[in-house]
């Protein structure tokens, strides 16, 4: 009896030892050298695997960083400048500092501002709705409100506001990875420069229709009246296809354009209340609307 047990143990241990030797030999023979810096760089990255850098995940981005001779074109939007500096240190290379950015939703077509003229009952997805028809309102450029952007966000930084039917961005959580920008079929969401105290000035509209049609579809549509372009002291506003656009790099947040906009299409967020009451009551009510969308 004991001999049987003994033989069993011995033969199995022997088998194990032989297999271990073969495996060791194979591991030595077919060894693949991997740069240890890849692991280091990956460690330094945030590990969100969001794809904001253009690579499938942090590991692939780390590999690309280690392989590249010049890493100034590479940027991790989630980790930001700090992470990139750390990566540069590990790799002993230079990185250019980039401005922090934040996603903004360029549509203010809430249920109140933009009438629903038809009912859509198909699959609840902006992409599918956009492929079938121009949306439930008369504005075929604006937010479809099915929340494709919310679905793709890995950072809980964007939510649908039930009251307005529009998505809103929580600036503190937003890492500017760009997932929502890609998900939006109407290209409403834009990554814009992050100003101090998360202040924002942007044209909250993407409607390229002629003024009458745009205004009919939505109360707060940009009608391309050119007033903001004329009033801007920094040449920061361009007008194309009946739609104004504020260039973030040129804008100095002076808010002159906000005052002249006849349809309140320019969003002004994060500023303290103004001292001089230049604006009329109508304007104030619109501001309340705007802050409601944002809260």
């Amino acid at each position, binding site marked *: 009896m004991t001999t049987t047990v003994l033989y069993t143990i011995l033969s199995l241990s022997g088998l194990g030892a032989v297999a271990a030797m073969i495996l060791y030999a194979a591991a030595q023979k077919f060894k693949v050298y991997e740069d240890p810096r890849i692991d280091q760089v990956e460690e330094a990255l945030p590990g969100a695997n969001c794809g904001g850098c253009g690579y499938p995940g942090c590991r692939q981005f780390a590999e690309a960083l280690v392989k590249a001779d010049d890493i100034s074109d590479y940027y991790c939007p989630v980790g930001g400048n700090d992470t990139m500096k750390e990566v540069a240190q590990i790799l002993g290379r230079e990185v250019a500092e980039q401005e922090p950015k934040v996603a903004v939703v360029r549509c203010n077509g809430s249920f109140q501002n933009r009438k629903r003229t038809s009912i859509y009952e*198909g*699959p609840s997805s902006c992409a599918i709705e956009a*492929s079938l*028809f*121009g949306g439930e309102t*008369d504005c075929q450029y604006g937010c479809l409100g099915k929340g494709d952007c919310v679905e793709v966000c890995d950072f809980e930084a964007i939510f649908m506001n039930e009251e307005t039917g529009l998505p809103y961005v929580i600036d503190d959580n937003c890492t500017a990875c760009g997932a929502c920008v890609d998900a939006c079929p109407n290209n409403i969401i834009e990554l814009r420069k992050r100003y101090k105290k998360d202040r924002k000035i942007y044209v909250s509209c993407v409607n390229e*229709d002629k003024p009458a049609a745009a205004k009919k579809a939505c109360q707060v549509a940009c009608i391309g009246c050119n007033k903001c372009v004329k009033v801007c002291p920094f040449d920061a506003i361009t007008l194309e296809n009946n739609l104004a656009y504020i260039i973030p790099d040129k804008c100095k947040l002076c808010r002159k354009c906000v005052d002249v906009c006849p349809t309140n299409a320019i969003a002004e967020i994060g500023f303290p209340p103004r001292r001089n009451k230049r604006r009329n009551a109508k304007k104030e009510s619109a501001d309340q609307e705007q802050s409601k969308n944002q809260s």
Partner: protein
Amino acid sequence: MLKTFTKGGVHPAENKITQDKAIEKAGLPKKVIIPIAQHIGAPSSPVVKKKDQVKAGDVIARSQGFVSSNIHASVSGTVAKVDHVVDASGFKQPCVVINTEDDQWADGIDTSDALVKDIDASAEEIRQKVLEAGIVGMGGATFPSHVKLSIPEGKHVDTLVINGVECEPYLTSDHRVMLERAEEMLVGIRLLMKALGVEKALIGIENNKPDAIAHLNEWLGDDPQIEVYGLKVKYPQGGEKQLINALLDREVPSGGLPLDVGVVVHNVGTALAVYEAVQKNKPLVERVVTVTGPSLTHPTNLLVRVGTPVGELIEAAGGLPEDTGKVVSGGPMMGKALKTLDAPVVKGTSGILVLPQKWAHREKELHCVRCAQCVDACPMGLEPYLLKQLAERERFEDLEKNSVLDCIECGSCSFTCPARLPLVEYIRYGKTNVNQIIRNRKQQ
């Protein structure tokens, strides 16, 4: 045993309310909105501008490229604007809007009812006239007809199939054309045969139109070249691939055209338009549209000008009923809900369907239980439940491998699904993206 296609198919309630209503000529619309892209292929380029005077039959947009089509003014009057207007697709499309002034036709157009039976034109002349007249497939697909008449090198066509199936429930426009314009349509068929150089034409008609079958047989007498076939009623028999399968027992290969099996298919409405274009020199500016719905007071078949706003047709049919929930352009299976009643009738509009509130809404979606009823119903032998899941997960490469582009969007799968899943919507979304991927690949 009546012929029909082999794979899949469903049989929705036929509801052909208007089948006994003779074609009425609709009054002239106050204005027409004519989209410059009413066909598959390149959009035409407008040749008129604001304030131009046009007569009915004048070209207002020229075809761009081979797969494209001319667009003609359907009324005489002044061009009000050339602008983007919401059409039946629900998108804003470039359109020419004409304010009607009087009823004048361009020179050289014969608007009389006299039948011109003798065929003088040569095959090439017929093709040229079809191209000039802007004729497109009038069954709904709106593929430019002159392309179908130009047989490429190396292909051989032996049979012309005429599609008088009209398998969509409610629609009766083709049925009425076959009853009331049979003689002209038959001349049209002979013209098509001459253009294609074929000796044989088959007309496929579903057996729920026995009067049309009898009527055509009467006109044909013992013509050896044209035969009329009664087919078993089954949807989507009007799909050209299904019709070829039913009539000739040939199968069009995946991704192929009817040309690959030696067949060309044209709709009865197209045959009539070809007759008018070649024998009467009249471009495609009018078509028969069924205006129907269970609660309409006066459902009817109307001969209307292309570009007439849908609202005017509904007025002619007794006005919009109070319980209206949805107005569909086309039939209930493949039609598209309209966003606005100002959307115009186009060359491919075969019907306007007004549905009451109780039928207008989608029922609650349940989960797919893989019962495979959609697989049984699919006339193209696809697996709709799988395609839906792949499209939902945006796996477009896999969709392409699963032949999503063969889908004819007939809606049989959605119709039969016990979980009421919107299968066609997902598949259509998948197709759009797969087409995009293929285009990108070609560019590289």
